[in-house]
């Protein structure tokens, strides 16, 4: 399948390893991967703050980077950016070209579960991982049933990782409570955000897992800062890095 990578600004600048792992794993799965130029922020920091006027130019720049790009899917290793891009594209541009882009947008886990399942992993991963079920992926992209919901239970993240031999998947206490990042919330509401992050980091560490594994880089970045501040014995990893290492 021909895939265009959507690498949000945070991943591009602060977590290039996540982008490299995404690219690498998609190629190992036999996909042809391109990285369209001119990508920028999805506009989330602005639209989340209510500032739609300020978000417009940014969002449309990103949309333009994908318009007319020949590919079957646009894959992004960051759930909340993906959700924001989808919603913002729709908000600012309702042309057929925009719709074409929107319809091809997938979060990485979603893509690997729904569109192109991994047939077989090559290498085992003999570690315990504590899954960070970040809010936007969970409640807006339906990557798994949120704990509040009593309906049909499913979990795409677990389903994708379960194929890896030796992996032991666990969850922190209060399995999908928000980690407190919330974009500008981390700065505007510093005290509450930090307390939420502290509690979450401790809950992950209490599982005795080696890694906190998640699909949302921003939450992982926030948790990483909390983990190191408290000198906890656990490390953050993006799901793409785990999968890439096992392929």
């Amino acid at each position, binding site marked *: 399948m021909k895939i265009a990578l959507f*690498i949000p*600004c945070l*991943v*591009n*600048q*602060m*977590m*290039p390893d996540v*982008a490299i792992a995404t690219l690498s794993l998609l190629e190992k799965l036999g996909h042809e*991967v*391109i*990285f*369209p130029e*001119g*990508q*920028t*922020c999805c*506009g989330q*920091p*602005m639209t*989340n*703050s*209510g*500032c739609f*006027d*300020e978000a417009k*130019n*940014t969002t449309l720049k990103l949309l333009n980077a994908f318009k007319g790009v020949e590919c079957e899917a646009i894959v992004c290793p960051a759930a909340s950016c993906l959700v924001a891009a989808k919603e913002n594209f729709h908000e600012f541009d309702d042309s057929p070209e925009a719709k074409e882009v929107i319809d091809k947008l997938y979060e990485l886990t979603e893509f690997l579960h729904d569109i192109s399942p991994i047939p077989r992993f090559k290498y085992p991963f003999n570690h315990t991982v504590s899954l960070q079920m970040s809010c*936007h992926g*969970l*409640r807006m992209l339906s990557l798994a049933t*949120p704990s509040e*919901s*009593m*309906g049909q239970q499913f979990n795409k993240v677990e389903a994708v990782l379960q194929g890896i031999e030796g992996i032991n998947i666990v969850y922190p206490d*209060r399995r999908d*409570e*928000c980690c*407190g*990042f*919330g*974009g*500008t*919330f*981390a*700065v*505007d*509401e*510093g*005290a*509450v*955000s*930090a307390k*939420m992050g*502290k509690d979450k980091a401790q809950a992950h560490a209490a599982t005795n897992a080696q890694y906190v594994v998640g699909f949302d880089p921003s939450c992982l970045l*926030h948790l*990483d800062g*909390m983990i*190191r*501040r408290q000198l906890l014995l656990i490390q953050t990893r993006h799901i793409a890095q785990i999968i890439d290492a096992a392929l």
Partner: protein
Amino acid sequence: MTQSKNHADKATIFCRDENRVDWHNKALWTLREKRDRAAASVPEWEDLRQLGSELKLHTLANLSHYLVEFEKNCQANGIHVHWAKDAAEHNQIALSILAKHQVKKLVKSKSMLTEECHLNPYLEKHGIEVIDTDLGERIIQLNNQPPSHIVVPAIHMKKEEVGDLFHEKLHTPKGESDPTRLTRAARAHLREQFLSADAAMTGVNMAIADIGAVVVCTNEGNADMGANLPKLQLHSMGIDKVIPSADSAMVLMRMLARNATGQPSTTYSSFYKGAKPGGEMHVIIVDNGRSDIMQDKILAESLKCIRCGGCLNTCPVYRRSGGYSYNYTIPGPIGIAVGAKHDETNSIPWACTLCGSCSYVCPTKVPLDKIIAHHRRLKAQQRTLPFGKSSYMPLVGKLMSSPTAFNCAMGSARIALRVLPHSLIKPFSGAWGKYRELPVAPKSSFDTWYKQNKANKSEAK
């Protein structure tokens, strides 16, 4: 209460006592866990939520029809119905009814609406003694505080603090903190109040149009004590409380207590459809801004709320910032949804990470996270953004929309993170660095890596 402080300031103060935060957090999370177990015991839970949502939407869409039907059927049952456009009118109506009967003492039960209207101080100013009779309400009334939660109003107080308060006000033994003994003391004290009251007033959980009745749900039976003892009974309700039929009440009642405290139903769920012999029953129907909320399609859905408090219990921010940080009578997600307009600091819509847990917990599917995000947009449009956002957001917008400028800025931030000692940049990195270690910055960005390693080999344009 200092009204001028924004949510973040008040939350920062609350967070200083971490033990208290942990305790508050845990007490409320326990309710969420009880709720999960109760909801899971109903196989058709998600269908009920859908039904609850649709039935509230249907009623709201035909509100005037159902209100008129409710009024007509109430009158047929001999109930006096009054209409109040705002809090002031509500209070005047209540006072005039009480004055006519020369009421000296009023016993009141569970009503967030009368809190919203600030009825107590108004009546007290006019010489009427008001006694809140729900245990939690009575505790905070004795402590001179408003509720900090809509279902468990004194949740912020530890039992030792209640003990001290009761020692001072009800003369219980010093140092008594046993909940059973404290409750017993409160009960004895309240019994005297019930027996000497001239009138009773309650809130309304549901108002049933086709039979002209109001439903009041409590766990302590105090609303019934109040309503049944004195001759005069008053019930205050928002226009959003009306529902079509007793059947629809059953749908909501199956969820109300389960979602609030995990109980299958409240201990007492009473239907009042007329005065007792020789008595008088009044219902006051209040708008107080609700029809304004209905003008906005997104905000209107907040009127589906049945006030179970579930969204407060699940909210990770509420649990760690306390009810008094919200600058409105109703705190938490639903408090932001219905109170954002009244918050003079314009900060409460940002007291939220938009995690969406509230919307999934809500029995009537109030899209709380969407409503909160919408409030932010409205504030931006009205140019009432907090945290200096209105000054820096245009800059961020400019920066982000230019990949070159943005990458350049991020590039220098990365270099700063790599080269400068963290102690040097920490003060500049604001709240992030205050509470967390700064990110370990990579050497280069992905697009630089890509250009060096991939671009020539792939077909990227």
